């Protein structure tokens, strides 16, 4: 489902992030337009997660601002326009993988792929009927990644998306991310492993 918002862009201006009153980073600026990806790298504690949570609207920046422009009425701000994949998978262990994904599809709206198709996309075609709690770490992560495909959001905020994935799955994820960029999406990914994304810009964060 291609977007019609040709001029959509994400701007971050001299952002500062604080956790528990301590500044973890300051002066982070970048701009991202359609089809572009930003890979945020840096050591543990450099504020990668804090930055992503600020972009997602879950935390207030200590200084600076984040703005999504050109999203029209469908995507008025970054929170509404983004898929946020954090450290946690946001899945209920007591429900089956399909039930979990169906719920997020209905809740998030903008349905894109059917649940079985999304599961196939991440290579979990066979196990949709299993309770999420039965899956291995890597399978859980892939099921969580399937959430990105059941409903459409132009901006993906991914926090260590490859954690727990084997090399083949990580390679597949890189392909899926490139597909999202080709469709005019935007990606901000925090990682300390190379994601294998061609043409992605890098934002290096250092501990203060």
């Amino acid at each position, binding site marked *: 489902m291609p977007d019609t918002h040709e001029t959509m862009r994400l701007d971050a201006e001299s952002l500062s992030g604080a956790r528990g009153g301590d500044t973890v980073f300051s002066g982070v600026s970048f701009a991202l337009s359609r089809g572009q990806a930003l890979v945020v790298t840096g050591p543990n504690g450099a504020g990668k997660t804090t930055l992503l949570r600020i972009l997602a609207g879950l935390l207030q920046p200590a200084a600076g601002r984040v703005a999504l422009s050109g999203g029209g009425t469908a995507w008025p701000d970054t929170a509404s326009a*983004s898929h946020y994949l*954090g450290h946690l998978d946001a*899945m209920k262990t*007591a*429900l089956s993988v399909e*039930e979990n994904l*169906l719920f*997020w599809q*209905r809740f998030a709206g903008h349905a894109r792929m059917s649940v079985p198709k999304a599961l196939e996309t991440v290579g979990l075609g066979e196990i949709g009927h299993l309770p999420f709690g039965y899956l291995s770490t890597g399978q859980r992560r892939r099921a969580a990644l399937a959430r990105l495909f059941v409903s459409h959001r132009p901006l993906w905020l991914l926090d260590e998306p490859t954690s727990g994935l084997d090399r083949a799955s990580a390679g597949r994820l890189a392909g899926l991310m490139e597909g999202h960029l080709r469709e005019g999406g935007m990606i901000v990914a925090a990682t300390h492993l190379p994601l294998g994304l061609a043409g992605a810009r890098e934002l290096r964060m250092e501990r203060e």
Partner: protein
Amino acid sequence: MLALYLRDVRLGIRAGSGALTGVLFFLAVVAVIPFGVGPDLNLLARIGPAILWIGALLASLLGLERLFQADREDGSLDLLVMADSRHMLALTVFVKCLAHWTANVLPLVAAAPLLGLFMNVPPLSLGAATLTLLAGTPAIAFIGAVGAALVVALPRGGLLVSVLVLPLTVPVLIFGVAASRAAVADPDPFLQPFLVLCALTLFFAVIGPVAAALALRNAD
């Protein structure tokens, strides 16, 4: 929103069966009262509706601290908060309260007439107590949501929720018991306290989710 309601009800029934725990606790509270008070049937019949109300109130506080904590632990809460522009957070909280009430409190209301028999409560009074529980217990869920949202980041918030929430539920308890007693004590009016009870539920249905949403948004 319907999807969220169905998911939460399904989780409430499937995982850990909070409904059964609540009913068992309710049963335990009601069953020990006659042993403590003694076998005076008239006395038991008189205090029966009040005991049913107290038992249901305490039992409905049981699973309350998990209302948002479970969603926070698996990361769902972030997504619910982020969806604010699509589904207003207060409305999301409201739906979660309704689902919690359906899965955990409605079984208590259904069990109340049966447990009332233990207390020699006459049929009319039983009916009144059940009706007032049906109308009043949603208010407890809505008040409880505020407490649950406040302690969402604390590892052991269960008792704290009860301590925070209990004082606020006192008006609900007073009017609930007043109405169910009035059904048998003749000169007392039934309708007025019952209507006040309904008003309390409606009042907290608005205030509770808004306050809880505010607390959740600032939980980080």
